[in-house]
């Protein structure tokens, strides 16, 4: 007999509904507690840039020569990021030529140009370019949509995607130079997880998920949260994580999968720095369908 079987008490009718309704009234579903302060997308970008700048300032001279990504060493990667900022400047200034520019090809000349420069010069140029991005952002319509490197996103989403990129490359450099990995601060991470959840249906489209599937994505730790995302039936985006009953989480036509994992690790998955087999995953529902969702998450980061 288990401990719970010692309590053969029958609950009064309606008590379950009443308690769950009162709970949801007291605290809305979906949001992490203790509550994480909200920061603007520009602030999230600025924080990621500051964190990377701090890392670059701490690197030794020889660290800049370490190979990191593709054929780039650390200095070349920072050069790539300078190129991305320059394209952002053009994008924010209304130049449509960068809308469909290739993320790598477009920035490669700036990356290559760093060879032979002093690391401090590269660092200063990149830092200045991020400040310039923020200055341009402050003059933009926050509700406007911008297109750069094949992405067409609202300004806020674009800045969070850029924060995501800076953090990811920050950790690329840390790996290359033997430094411990970093995690974004909770408010910035919350922006990133929100964006990743919102984009999950597009990753599913990309990987060819066909069957409608209701996904409950639970990302644990500060900066995490809970999202209900419909995938496999076109990009519908995430919906409320407060359905009245677990059984009602999915429609009769769609299967249900719940994925629970750490928020930072999930962002590394989305950045394609981790495989699903490297995450501590807790999956409820069809394992194959869950694997399809995780593959969709990985597909959000492509080069």
């Amino acid at each position, binding site marked *: 007999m288990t*401990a719970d079987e010692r309590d053969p008490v029958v609950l009064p009718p309606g008590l379950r509904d009443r308690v769950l309704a009162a709970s949801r009234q007291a605290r809305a579903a979906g949001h992490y507690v203790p509550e994480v302060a909200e920061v603007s997308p520009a602030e999230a970008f600025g924080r990621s840039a500051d964190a990377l700048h701090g890392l670059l300032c701490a690197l030794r001279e020889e660290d800049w020569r370490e190979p990191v990504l593709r054929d780039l060493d650390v200095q070349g990667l920072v050069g790539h990021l300078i190129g991305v900022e320059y394209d952002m400047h053009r994008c924010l200034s209304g130049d449509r030529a960068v809308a469909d520019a290739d993320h790598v090809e477009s920035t490669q000349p700036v990356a290559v140009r760093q060879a032979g420069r002093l690391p401090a010069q590269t660092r200063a140029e990149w830092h200045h370019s991020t400040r310039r991005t923020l200055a341009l952002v402050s003059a933009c319509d926050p509700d406007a949509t911008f297109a750069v490197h094949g992405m067409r996103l609202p300004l806020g989403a674009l800045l969070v995607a850029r924060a995501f990129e800076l953090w990811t*490359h920050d950790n690329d450099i840390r790996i290359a130079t033997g430094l411990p990995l970093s995690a974004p601060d909770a408010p910035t991470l919350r922006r990133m997880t929100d964006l990743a959840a919102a984009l999950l249906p597009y990753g599913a489209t990309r990987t060819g998920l066909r069957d409608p599937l209701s996904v409950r994505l639970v990302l644990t730790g500060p900066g995490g949260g809970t999202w209900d995302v419909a995938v496999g039936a076109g990009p519908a985006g995430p919906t409320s994580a407060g359905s009245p009953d677990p059984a009602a989480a999915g429609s009769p036509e769609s299967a249900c999968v719940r994925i629970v994992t750490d928020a930072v690790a999930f962002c590394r998955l989305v950045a394609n720095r981790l495989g699903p087999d490297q995450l501590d995953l807790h999956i409820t529902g069809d394992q194959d369908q869950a694997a399809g969702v995780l593959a969709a998450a990985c597909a959000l980061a492509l080069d």
Partner: protein
Amino acid sequence: MLTRLDPVCLADWGAQRTAEHCLLAGAPVSVQVVEGTNALGPVGVPVAKGADALLAARLAAGDDHALAEIFDRLAPAVYAAALRVLGQGTAAQDVVQDVFVELWRHPGRYDPSAGTLRTFLLMLARHRAVDLVRSELRRIARQERQHRLTPWQQSPPVDEEVAAAEAASAVRAAVRLLPDGQRRVVELAYFEGLTCREVAQAAGIPEGTAKSRLRLALAKLEAVLDRQLLESS
């Protein structure tokens, strides 16, 4: 609704995307795995150690399905614990509600390393039930005094009367366990609403003795009620 993005713009973006663009990061890098541990350090940290810790992590992340799962598993035990203190009725249901709302609002107050979720919830239920009994005891005493001072008073709502009766029955049962002298002063002070001086006069004892007996009686009452709750867990 947790979406913060404009779905129209995202749809446009989705339609435009080709397979060769980076969205959230640069190109994938290889990940070195050293002796079974992930070179990425924090990645290897599990979401939670144990089923209860996982549920707590899900609660903190705002997963209301986790709350429903916990309710289905543990609400009968919580309700039973409340019933043992308060008797049948709405008061025990209120305790169940308070316990689960508290867990949902402040999941961080449960420390999985300190014990099971079941133990934590039963402890919450016990404390809440004892608080309810004590507050009802005070309310009954106030009401008794009010009745003595006021010639006519509007009756309280029926549900309050029922809850009060349930709590009062638990308290009266505990009072019956007191020694005669202490039981008498409690009855005079709380059920008949007498002041300490009046209790002393009615019982034929010095006022100081009445006070000390009241203090002793209240301490014993709390101990008895707590013991009942512990036994019920």
